[in-house]
């Protein structure tokens, strides 16, 4: 029930004083109430839409940062784990993952920037 789908705002207007707009969800367009994002919204923004209401604007920098951090960590893991093959114990492998987690880990990065 708390389903929220990201879509791109393609049109904005007012209906009897209520901020409304049209949001494109990968080709499907719907009318959406923009009252709760009205202070900051612009055409072209992505919004999370729930039962016909935009409940947030997607923070695109944050989305990219999370994804990139995860990607980077993924590659880092592979490099580290590859170098461990033959010599690495399960503990060493765990520490490698932990070390990565405390550095550029998405968790840490997201937690701090979100706070």
């Amino acid at each position, binding site marked *: 029930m708390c*389903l929220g789908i990201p879509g791109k705002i393609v049109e904005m207007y007012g209906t009897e004083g209520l901020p409304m707009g049209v949001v494109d969800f990968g080709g499907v367009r719907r009318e959406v109430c923009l009252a709760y994002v009205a202070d900051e919204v612009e055409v072209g923004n992505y919004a999370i839409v729930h039962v016909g209401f935009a409940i947030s604007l997607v923070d695109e920098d944050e989305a990219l940062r999370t994804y990139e951090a995860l990607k980077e960590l993924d590659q880092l893991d592979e490099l580290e784990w590859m170098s461990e093959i033959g010599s690495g114990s399960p503990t060493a492998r765990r520490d490698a993952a932990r070390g990565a987690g405390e550095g550029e880990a*998405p968790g840490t990065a997201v*937690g701090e920037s979100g706070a």
Partner: protein
Amino acid sequence: MKFLSEYRDPELARSLVDRIRARSSRRWRLMEVCGGQTHTIVKQGIPEVLGESVELIHGPGCPVCVTPLEQIDRALNLAGRPEVIFTSFGDMLRVPGSDCDLFQIRARGGEVKVVYSPLDALELARKNPQCEVVFFAVGFETTAPANAMAVWRARELGIENFSVLVSHVTVPPAITAILESDDNRVQGFLAAGHVCTVMGWEEYEPLADRYRVPIVVTGFEPVDILEGIWMAVQQLEEGRHEVENQYARSVRRDGNLPAREIIGRVFELVDRQWRGIGEIPMSGLGLREEFAAWDAERKFDLAGIRASEPAECRAGDVLRGRIKPIECAAFGTACTPESPLGAPMVSSEGACAAYWAFARYRGAGTEAAS
């Protein structure tokens, strides 16, 4: 689709699974409190891939499922009245009441309409001034701003033939009730990303602190959920108990302020019955006195409608995370989506329906029962 497909990347998911498994020194027990997350978790087989590192306990995260039988019966009563057009989100229609469901009321000639947005129900009231349009306002905090807006606009535009049957619940009191119960097994929570998109996470901080449990605000895609689990496991391994935010692309610490403001203007905290769980103090939202004219419970005489839960359905144990759906003897035998005993088998976000939808669990209920 942008902001969806990236978070379904199987490579990233696999890497997170590896890290969770490597980091867990014991089997941690985490609860997710959102039916959407439960659905993704079961669909993707996350419990199986995590194996012995993490047990996921499915919490009371489906508003349809926790709506009390009494409130369903009131909805059915209203929907059967000739002057009423009863409107609802689609997933309420097959939820069993004491005698029937909304679909059956419709088959008997009742006007029951599914709406996408509560504003659609308001529009229907405007177009049908000779009818009473009632909207079934069910949901967690995520849905509260939308439902509050419909009532707010009804007053603003002077639409008097519109009212709402409210069954709103809030998440933090449910988390408290779970943590306070004697047989609690939960060591950490994934908080629902869209509930927190509206409310922020300030109200979870005293919970994390008081009960010493990590709480990670988490999104809905497989990579989101695995990252949320990964963050919670790291906290548990390090002995931390903080509120962290995995779903930073949508959630800010203080949530959505205009949405919170209108929720506060239209609703107030009330005691609320949770189906299968019982009453949780101050766990629901009810309309404030100044909106009494749009409150279906006050507008129509519904107070006499009382109901008690069927004994065969163990929805309460499922909703509290005491048993998995497949541990219920009725699962897949006496209870299926075609003839459900309880709401968790009906709603697409109910834990029982999620287990049923992914066929690998279907034989399990019969095995457990035999």
